[in-house]
């Protein structure tokens, strides 16, 4: 059982967009006064880049964007003998439905992120880092640009970082409304000034990435965590979580809970603790019907999975994926066909159009789900819904198509009866809306 007395490290109590116990943390002086950039100073003066990589490896930190790849191991993939420059790209495209954890870091803890980027860039030998922020995050872009200017004026970024030989420029690159640009290779194309089409791999970005040079792409939360890891040591971080899921993470809890928000918790927390202890339980104390544990791209779970540990391995064991750790909660009033249609609509809109199976398949999934939800479904449609994913999965350049199938497949698996009822009755059996707009 997890001790819920855990004190948040990254967000120190920023659960709501409106709370911010340390509003001045977005300014350089206040950040510095609280010990900010001391870890960077320590790293630059006392550690070699290889030691930083080892430290991050030992911490068990895994990527917080969705795939969960071990960060230190990823850094280790860079070629050792390359004459080409190395680029670091920080992924702040945060567009996975349900996910809103990077927003408070970008908007309220910009210098923490810059410090994390700087330490990581030093570790991998990069002198130019790009921070890609989705176009809709206007405020985050403004805050980060201002923070970079401040840090540069104070000698924390630029030619001689904190008086050392290490130099670093960080460039904010704004997206313009494309979910696919959160996919790492599409993001590289977007930074290069092209449309955001994912690239075929191999070659992997660590070998041949941005401008054809070795490139490391890490999520905002991942890079922000490098700071406390280097400050307090890898053992401290690792011991918070489990053997295979080191440390803590920010869970965005949304949907039908009493206190939705961003909850930072050790990765030993269970789904039940997250929903009932931290997020206050289901609204009006209704029964829980379903949960999506890692953003809309992962399979749905049900109330039977409440004792799932919210670690990578725990959620996998339950038959889903931890993804971006965005937990979307449904109470018993929600129609699963309606929910699947909403997600299908999203993926249809966001499919980049490069690969036929995804472009066509996501459109078909939406069309069929829309037909069932609006009472025009046929029983054969259920076979079609089961068949279409087999024509998409594993047949495209990136995983967007696979992601689009997750909700449909798991929805049919757990709630097939609901789909059938829609078809038999020729209408949706649920009452709408699920939440009155008052």
């Amino acid at each position, binding site marked *: 059982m997890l001790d819920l007395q855990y004190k948040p490290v990254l967000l120190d109590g920023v659960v709501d967009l409106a709370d911010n116990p340390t509003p001045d943390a977005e300014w350089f002086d206040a950040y510095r006064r609280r010990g900010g950039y001391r870890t960077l100073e320590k790293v630059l003066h006392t550690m070699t880049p290889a030691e930083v990589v080892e430290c991050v490896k030992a911490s068990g930190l895994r990527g917080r964007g969705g795939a969960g790849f071990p960060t230190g191991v990823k850094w280790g993939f860079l070629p050792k003998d390359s004459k080409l420059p190395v680029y670091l790209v920080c992924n702040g495209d945060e567009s996975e439905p349900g996910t809103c954890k990077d927003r408070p870091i970008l908007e309220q803890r910009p210098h923490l992120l810059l410090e994390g980027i700087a330490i990581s860039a030093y570790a991998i030998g990069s002198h130019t880092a790009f921070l890609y922020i989705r176009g809709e995050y206007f405020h985050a872009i403004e805050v980060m640009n201002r923070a970079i200017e401040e840090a540069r004026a104070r000698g924390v970024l630029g030619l001689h970082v904190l008086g050392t030989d290490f130099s670093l420029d960080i460039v904010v690159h704004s*997206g313009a*409304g494309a979910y696919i640009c959160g996919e790492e290779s599409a993001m590289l194309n977007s930074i290069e*000034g092209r*449309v955001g089409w994912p690239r075929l791999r191999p070659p992997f970005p660590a070998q041949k990435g941005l*401008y054809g040079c070795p490139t490391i792409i890490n999520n905002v939360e991942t890079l922000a965590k490098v700071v406390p890891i280097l400050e307090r040591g890898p053992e401290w971080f690792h011991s918070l979580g489990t053997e295979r899921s080191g440390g803590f993470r920010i869970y965005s809890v949304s949907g039908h809970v009493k206190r939705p928000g961003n909850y930072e918790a050790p990765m030993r927390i269970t789904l039940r603790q997250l929903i009932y202890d931290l997020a206050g339980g289901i609204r009006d104390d209704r029964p829980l019907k379903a949960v999506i544990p890692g953003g809309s791209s992962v399979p749905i779970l049900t109330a039977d999975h409440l004792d799932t540990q919210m670690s990578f391995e725990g959620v996998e064991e339950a038959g889903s994926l931890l993804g971006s750790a965005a937990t979307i909660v*449904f109470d018993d009033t929600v129609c699963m066909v309606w929910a699947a249609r909403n997600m299908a*609509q999203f993926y249809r809109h966001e499919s980049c159009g490069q690969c036929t199976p995804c472009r066509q398949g996501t459109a078909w999934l939406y069309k069929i789900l829309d037909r069932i939800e609006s009472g025009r479904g046929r029983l054969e449609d259920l076979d079609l819904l089961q068949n279409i994913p087999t024509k998409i999965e594993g047949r495209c350049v990136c995983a967007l198509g696979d992601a689009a199938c997750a909700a449909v497949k798991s929805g049919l698996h757990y709630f097939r009866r609901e789909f059938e009822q829609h078809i038999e009755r020729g209408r949706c059996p649920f009452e709408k809306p699920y939440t009155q*707009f008052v």
Partner: protein
Amino acid sequence: MTMHEPYYLSLQRRKWLTSLARRYPQRRSIALPAVWAVQYDWGFIPAPAIEEIAEVVGITPAAVREIVTFYSMFREAPVGRYLIGVCGTLSCALCGAEGLLDYLQEKLGIKPGETTPDGLFSLEVMMCLGACAWAPAMLVNQRIHVRLTRTRVDEILAWCRENA
């Protein structure tokens, strides 16, 4: 070939883009910033601006057109003074986004994709805005508004009218 005089991209914008280009290893990386610059100044990307952007960035007009049409925030036609983008994705949809959209349609008398006759408001349904835990949410031009209610929407619309 005649070079375009600064028109859609002002001299000041061009200077800024040139200094930005120095921070990227390749000049074509300023393609998105250049399109953004035109949209900030003009509210949309007028068709004749494409060639000027292409020239400044150093890519073909087709490549610029590709970017303008690929990224959904770039607009090829003007919108109202305030563009209201209602988040329609799952977390918001669970928490009343459909009602929010209905309410806005009723208050403004327009459907998504339309602009009010006075040119003040345009309405759009957007994909996930990353405000999932504070649903329902909408973007008004550059600003995100969260945990919306009828009263809050009334206040926001009134503020927009006063400050137009």
